């Protein structure tokens, strides 16, 4: 409530207080300036002092209320005359003799010449406020108990320099220190050495001091040296005058969430990379199909126009057959990839002798022609597996095709079929370009071709080896490679062997 301005009235307040004034909670009364006798008295005054209006009117206020002023009354009255108002605390007595501390706000009433007429006293009971303060502090105490029992959050206080001054259960649980071990130490002990060196603790406090709050996430170190990913809020605590009293720090262990986010980020990166590789693959595949398409279209036009000499036709037809086969292989590979990615790749298993499959594939390659010498250079006689004959044929055909692509014209290519304990295997060996050790991990990645100079000219889409390995694995087997740059490569398909019927 603002102090009353002195009213420029000629008469004093009425001894019968206005209804509104009577309703006021505070004690309100007027007394004459010269005699200090009470001239009006409201309900609030009756409540505060215990005196009825009848008892109070005409009494000297100072005596009735046995007031003890913080300064001589004359001085207070001088101030009243000078400024028209005064505020201060006065110890007074209730009718019962009980002492009460009262907050006084006084206003001076003057006549038209400025001569003091009366004083309006508005007094409120400070003891009530004190009780409220006491209630408040017990609620703070309860809040403190609550904080100390919180387990999910480390909640503690720092002094303005960052020294730990309080500690809760959650802090002990999350950081591993007991209160007696950590209070008095600087909070930078929770930071990793590299973050301490980078002055992160200091900068966090500076930010909190400047902006009121610091929020961040980062690795923190427990007492046992293990790390956890923390979400941290540091709030600057200031007193009424605005000076920094310290900081409240709330830390949460969000390692699980952080790891989950990391996993999702990795996954997103992987998917982005795959998407990019797929786009690149589409380019390569389109290019791969365009070569044979150009030939088929071109020769078809020449046939239509009668520009092809009949004696050339058988040779060209055979060449085109090879190109069609090449296109068919790519299309089949694309279908297989699609089946693999949607988990629809079915295996039609039967008893298969790998020796037969290899001989069949070598025969096919020889039929197309070419300059490479391909031979079955070693054989166990038979190597029986329970497998999808067509798909295993595709794997071996791809391995031979690769050996041809990455060997010089006329280079030797050897196939070996064998048994090794419970495994049957086929190795395809060439004396070609070989693979650099750093490229081996990329070899079986889908849609990925090795980033080599030679690969700019050698046709390929980055599907075959991925497919071959997947087919091997779905048979319970494996496809491995052994290679030396500029010496050659050996790819080995291993499948679980079936014992031959006696």
């Amino acid at each position: 409530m603002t102090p009353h301005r002195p009213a420029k009235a000629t008469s004093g307040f009425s001894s019968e207080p206005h209804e509104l004034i009577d309703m006021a909670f505070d004690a309100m009364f007027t007394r004459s300036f010269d005699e200090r006798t009470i001239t009006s008295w409201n309900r609030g005054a009756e409540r505060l002092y215990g005196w009825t209006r009848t008892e109070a009117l005409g009494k000297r206020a100072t005596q009735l209320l046995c007031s003890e002023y913080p300064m001589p009354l004359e001085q207070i009255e001088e101030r009243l005359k000078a400024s028209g108002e005064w505020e201060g605390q006065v110890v007074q007595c209730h009718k019962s003799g009980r002492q009460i501390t009262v907050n006084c706000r006084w206003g001076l009433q003057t006549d038209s010449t400025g001569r003091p007429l009366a004083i309006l006293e508005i007094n409120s009971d400070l003891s009530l406020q004190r009780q409220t303060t006491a209630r408040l502090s017990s609620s703070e105490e309860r809040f403190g108990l609550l904080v100390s029992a919180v387990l999910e959050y480390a909640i503690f206080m720092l002094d303005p320099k960052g020294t730990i001054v309080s500690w809760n259960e959650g802090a002990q649980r999350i950081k591993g220190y007991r209160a007696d071990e950590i209070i008095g130490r600087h909070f930078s002990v929770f930071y990793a050495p590299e973050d301490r060196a980078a002055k992160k603790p200091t900068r966090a406090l500076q930010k909190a001091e400047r902006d009121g709050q610091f929020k961040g996430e980062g690795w923190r170190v427990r007492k046992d040296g293990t790390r956890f990913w923390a979400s941290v809020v540091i709030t600057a605590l200031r007193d009424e005058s605005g000076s920094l009293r310290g900081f409240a720090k709330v830390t949460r262990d969000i390692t699980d969430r952080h790891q989950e986010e990391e996993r999702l980020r990795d996954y997103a990166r992987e998917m982005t990379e795959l998407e990019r590789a797929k786009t690149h693959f589409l380019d390569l595949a389109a290019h791969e199909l365009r070569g044979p398409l150009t030939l088929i279209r071109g020769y078809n036009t020449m046939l239509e126009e009668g520009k092809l000499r009949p004696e050339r036709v058988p040779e060209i037809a055979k060449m085109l057959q090879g190109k069609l086969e090449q296109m068919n292989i790519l299309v089949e590979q694309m279908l297989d990839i699609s089946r693999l990615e949607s988990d629809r790749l079915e295996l039609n298993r039967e008893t298969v002798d790998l020796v037969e499959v290899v001989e069949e594939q070598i025969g096919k390659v020889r039929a197309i022609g070419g300059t490479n010498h391909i031979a079955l250079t070693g054989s166990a006689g038979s190597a029986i597996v329970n497998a999808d004959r067509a798909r295993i044929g595709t794997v071996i055909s791809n391995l031979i095709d690769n050996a041809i692509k990455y060997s010089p014209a006329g280079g030797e290519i050897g196939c070996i079929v064998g048994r090794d304990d419970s495994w049957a295997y086929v190795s395809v060996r060439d004396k070609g370009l070989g693979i650099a050790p750093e490229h081996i991990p990329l070899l079986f990645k889908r849609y990925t071709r090795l980033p080599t100079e030679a690969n700019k000219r050698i046709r390929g889409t980055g599907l075959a080896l991925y497919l071959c390995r997947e087919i091997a694995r779905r048979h319970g087997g494996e496809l491995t490679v052994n290679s030396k740059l500029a010496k050659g490569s050996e790819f080995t398909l291993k499948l679980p062997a079936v014992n031959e019927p006696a």
Partner: protein
Amino acid sequence: MAAGHHVFLVDDDAALGEMYSLGLEAEGLRVTVLVDAMDLNERVAAEDPDIVVLDWELPGIRGDQALERLRRSDEGRGIPVLMLSNFSGTRNGVIDRVFASGAIAWLEKVNTSPSQLASKLREVLANPVV
């Protein structure tokens, strides 16, 4: 009819080189197939062809680079050059560059039959303004 005109066809794909050369020869042109453009300048100087058909993707030196090199030589400065390629990567800049170097056309193999190539060559040879 540009009978007897000598065509240099630079293509590293043997099957395509053979198809186009069969087609062009059926149209009365004389064709020399080069599998790369490494010694294109020297071959042009030695054999003096009437026109060059260049692939873009070639081993060693790319078609556009071969064209620029050809344009810097005395023998190759004025010879008509057509690009014939199935190059399907990004074309940003590449095609502009070959035209800036004086290529007469950029033909896509898949859309160019041997007889279409022959008529394009005859058209260029009949109007020798580069």
